[in-house]
């Protein structure tokens, strides 16, 4: 009779066992902040549809200290989300070949970050001009 009895180790709490996994869980969970911000904006849109009083109420709510703290948290979390999202580019994208050579991961990631910063600045500039 076989003496084999392979032991399967439990997976509970797997993400706490390695700093790499902890960072993975942190950057994945920043998606919740992206969702929360999107919902905040959607609520604003709905309030806009409900008329002037509702819209002004939403604008006032956005000025509350709680809202400002929440938005700062959104900003930090979404910035980290963008940072790690582009960091995964070399893993998730097909290799980009330029002049017969594979583009270095640093170049791919750096281009992503640069594009994200430029897009954010451009958006900020447009909003600034509309507001002025």
């Amino acid at each position: 009779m076989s003496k084999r009895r392979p032991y399967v180790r439990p997976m509970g709490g797997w993400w706490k066992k390695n700093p790499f996994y902890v960072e993975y869980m942190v950057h994945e969970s920043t998606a919740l902040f992206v969702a929360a911000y999107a919902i905040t904006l959607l609520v604003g849109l709905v309030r806009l549809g409900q008329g002037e009083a509702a819209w002004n109420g939403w604008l006032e709510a956005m000025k509350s200290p709680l809202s400002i703290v929440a938005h700062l948290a959104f900003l930090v979390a979404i910035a980290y989300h963008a940072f790690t999202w582009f960091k995964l580019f070399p893993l998730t994208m097909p290799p980009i070949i330029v002049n017969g050579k594979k583009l270095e991961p640093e170049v791919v990631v750096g281009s992503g970050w640069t594009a994200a910063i430029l897009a954010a600045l451009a958006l900020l500039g447009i909003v600034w001009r509309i507001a002025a």
Partner: protein
Amino acid sequence: MVPLVKRQTRKGKHPMSEQKIIEIEVLRYKPESDQAPHSEVYKVPFTDDMSVLQGVQYIKDNFDGSLTFRWSCRMAICGSCGMMINGIPKLSCESFLRDYYPNRITVEALANFPIEKDLVVDLSGFIEKLEAIQPYIIPKEPRTLEQGEYIQTPEQFSQYIQFTSCINCTLCYAACPQVGLNPDFIGPAAMALLHRYNMDSRDGGQAQRMELVASEEGVYNCSAVGYCSEVCPKHVDPGNAVNVNKINAAKDYFLRFLSPKGGAQ
């Protein structure tokens, strides 16, 4: 100095003044008697040129001959000696005791595999996965001997060469939580090998392999943790092979609506 220390090691003499001793905590499991694995600590004298594998061999030779582990080449090419060293999947032959000293090191069988005994894991699931991906060239256009060999340019060769470097050490499986959570997931190394054949200009098996790529066991188990590529000792980047095939599977799924020839089987 170094030859002197070596000679002393061979004779089994370890003067305390020169001899460094490291504690190695090994996760032991005897299927005949143990309900679950348990740790045992060994005090191993070592020299600066000793690998973790040599440390484990020292334990087997001097403390407990029943300690079971796999190894062969001692030079990071056979892929047999993978272990969790301080919780990180590594080839024990290219990890050195001096880098951990004076701290205790823990050595455990590769994660996400069933433990057969001590540091030996059950690889049968992995072998089945390797077979499942059809790891051979399925000729695009069959040629007779008279027609001569298949020609391949260096550029075509460069498309897949990276994925041929895999030594089946399975460190990437030990690094992948999705493999641990779903042992049926085809996993990084097998997908890298599948990609190796798909990317070969002589091969025409991409459509045949697609069924597996897009299946329940396929690439969509991957959540892009990326640790597989991080721990790969041969820089195969299996995570990239998995993720590129997510794009391929998505293309295959959507393009079948556009192309009359690309229908489902």
